[in-house]
């Protein structure tokens, strides 16, 4: 991806900026909004304009010692206070402490008769009074365009809005003006023509019934800024714009190894296990033992005192704990010790960005050295494949930056590699393929290391045995024989079971498997 995708870090701001305190926004705007200037925040209904402005005010008052003024044209301060209370913002308390001044402008056109010359002196006086009352440095006008429905003389209005912006600039107030998006224009009434310093566009779109919010800095005069659309979300802590991870591949790699939790598998990986900080993909058909293999890794690591975050998109904590107990993996003591953190939610619960952000937040809080995501394929049911790829790439990038060893499980059809796996394969360091075959009335699981970057891994196909004491790997002769038969070999059942020709058959089979998977490997 081109370099411009990442916000410039080494930029000398030529313009003084006011930090918003909103997670991510200060990064993409390289420091915040233009200080003492007006910024237009526009977008359709419900896109989060008001939220952005309110958080700017609240954080300014609470964190940056900059009192603020809110002039609300559409909602009463009471309504607004209620709306943002769930986000942990206490507008009333801030107003009582004189950190915030709330004024609600109510207009009822049917009550008003216009006759002759007028101006909006009343609005200026109210604003001035509000600013003076709290010593405001920040102002939010939400939504200034409501004036257009309150007054019928557009000529006067335009002149007055122009005067208002000039006035705000003269007073050195850092201002957010929200505006409704227009048809083919940024704002319905062309406010962007009056303010040319900074324009932020918010967008809320629904894809496959799942909403995604995006933000773009359309214009920011006199400074560099991230030009892309950045996904953001609004949750119980306010707004967060997704921090874009570095696009430069500069992760420090570790030579340290982490045991896989299955000694036989360690043997296949130079007798040591995965590289620390690497990404592991375990893929296979349903019932192959993907989750068990991932859980075995989690258990082994936690027993060594590592912290592991287990994110499940399929099973609840109770369910997975019970199921793993049956194969000798006991999560309970690890959960009690706080070494294992299990979080489960439905893939369809959020859009991709929300998933990513939630995982980011969990990682920042829990600080695990191992992250397991089980399974990633489920995410596709919640979004488009493209979005899932982009999300997984960013997630893997983030995990690598943090030096976190990650294990992803992926559901694929028997003998096939899922499309999603192809997309992320370049980011995967170690890829373990699981499969099963029915043979002599019994199901056999096969395990095979498709790739393991930076190590001389075993090319063998092994039979994976899931016992009440965990996973063991056995020889896969029987499986290979079966595979030969499947592939149209002339061998009859008796011969297939014979081990004497196993070696040559195995070679043939492995070559076949590799060929079949090769499009995914690179």
């Amino acid at each position, binding site marked *: 991806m081109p370099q411009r995708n990442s916000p410039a870090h080494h930029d000398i701001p030529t313009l003084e900026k006011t930090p918003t305190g909103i997670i991510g926004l200060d990064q993409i705007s390289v420091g915040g909004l233009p200080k003492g200037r007006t910024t237009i925040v526009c977008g359709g209904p419900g896109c989060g304009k008001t939220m952005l402005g309110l958080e700017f005010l609240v954080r300014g008052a609470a964190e940056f010692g900059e009192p603020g003024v809110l002039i609300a044209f559409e909602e009463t301060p009471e309504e607004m206070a209620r709306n943002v209370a769930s986000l942990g913002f206490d507008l009333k308390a801030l107003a009582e402490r004189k950190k915030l001044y709330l*004024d609600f402008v109510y207009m009822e056109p049917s*009550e008003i008769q216009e006759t002759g*010359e007028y101006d*909006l002196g009343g609005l200026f006086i109210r604003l001035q009074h509000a600013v003076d009352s709290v010593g405001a440095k920040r102002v939010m006008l939400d939504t200034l365009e409501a004036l257009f429905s309150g007054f019928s003389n557009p000529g006067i209005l335009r002149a007055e809005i122009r005067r208002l912006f000039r006035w705000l600039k003269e007073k050195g107030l850092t201002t957010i003006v929200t505006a409704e998006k227009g048809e083919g224009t940024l704002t319905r009434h062309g406010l962007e023509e009056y303010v040319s310093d900074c324009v932020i566009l918010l967008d809320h779109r629904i894809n496959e019934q799942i909403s995604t919010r995006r933000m773009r800095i359309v214009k920011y005069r006199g400074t560099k800024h991230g030009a892309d659309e950045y996904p953001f979300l609004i949750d119980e802590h306010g707004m967060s714009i997704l921090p874009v991870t570095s696009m430069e591949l500069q992760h420090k790699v570790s030579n340290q190894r982490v045991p896989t939790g299955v000694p036989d598998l360690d043997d296949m990986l130079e007798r040591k296990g995965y590289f620390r900080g690497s990404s592991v993909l375990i893929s296979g058909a349903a019932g192959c033992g993907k989750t068990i293999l991932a859980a075995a890794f989690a258990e082994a690591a936690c027993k060594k005192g590592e912290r592991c975050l287990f994110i499940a998109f399929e099973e609840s904590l109770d369910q997975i704990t019970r199921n793993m107990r049956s194969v000798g993996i006991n999560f309970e003591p690890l959960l009690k010790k706080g070494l294992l953190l299990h979080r489960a939610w439905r893939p369809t619960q959020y859009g991709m960005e929300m998933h990513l952000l939630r995982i980011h937040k969990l990682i920042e809080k829990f600080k695990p050295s191992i992250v397991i995501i089980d399974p990633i394929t489920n995410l596709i049911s919640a979004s488009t494949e493209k979005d899932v790829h982009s999300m997984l790439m960013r997630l893997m990038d983030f995990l690598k930056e943090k030096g976190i060893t990650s294990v992803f499980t992926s559901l694929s059809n028997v003998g096939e590699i899922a499309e999603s796996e192809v997309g992320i394969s370049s980011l995967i360091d170690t890829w373990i393929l699981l499969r099963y075959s029915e043979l002599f009335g019994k199901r056999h699981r096969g395990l095979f290391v498709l790739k393991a970057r930076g190590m001389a891994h075993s090319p063998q196909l092994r039979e994976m045995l899931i016992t009440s004491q965990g996973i063991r790997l056995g020889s896969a002769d029987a499986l290979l024989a079966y595979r030969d038969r499947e592939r149209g070999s002339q061998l009859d059942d008796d011969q297939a079971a014979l081990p004497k020709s196993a070696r040559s058959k195995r070679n043939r089979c492995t070559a076949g498997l590799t060929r079949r998977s090769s499009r995914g490997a690179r």
Partner: protein
Amino acid sequence: MKKNSKEPAVSAENHFQLRLYVAGQTPKSLAALSNLKRICATHLDGRYRIEVIDLMKNPQLAQGDQILAIPTLVRNLPKPIRKIIGDLSDTERVLVGLDLRGLQVRNAS
């Protein structure tokens, strides 16, 4: 800044309580006040009381009556509240705004 009309209230129903919001002695404000006085003298015959509020001196009063435009004339009584913005130069519209059009028709008939 209160200017009372010379005559006291006749009855609550017919009595007009008017408040004119201005911001300093601007030409628009002065025009509005003189227009208002003229209209009241012609059409209300002492049944009114005009209060002029200068928001430059009392900015906190702008919020209460939801004043944005200057000058604004607010008819507090009789109810319902009516607002007329501008310099009140269009007498006809002021009369409509104050609901005096209907009153006149009634008086005439």
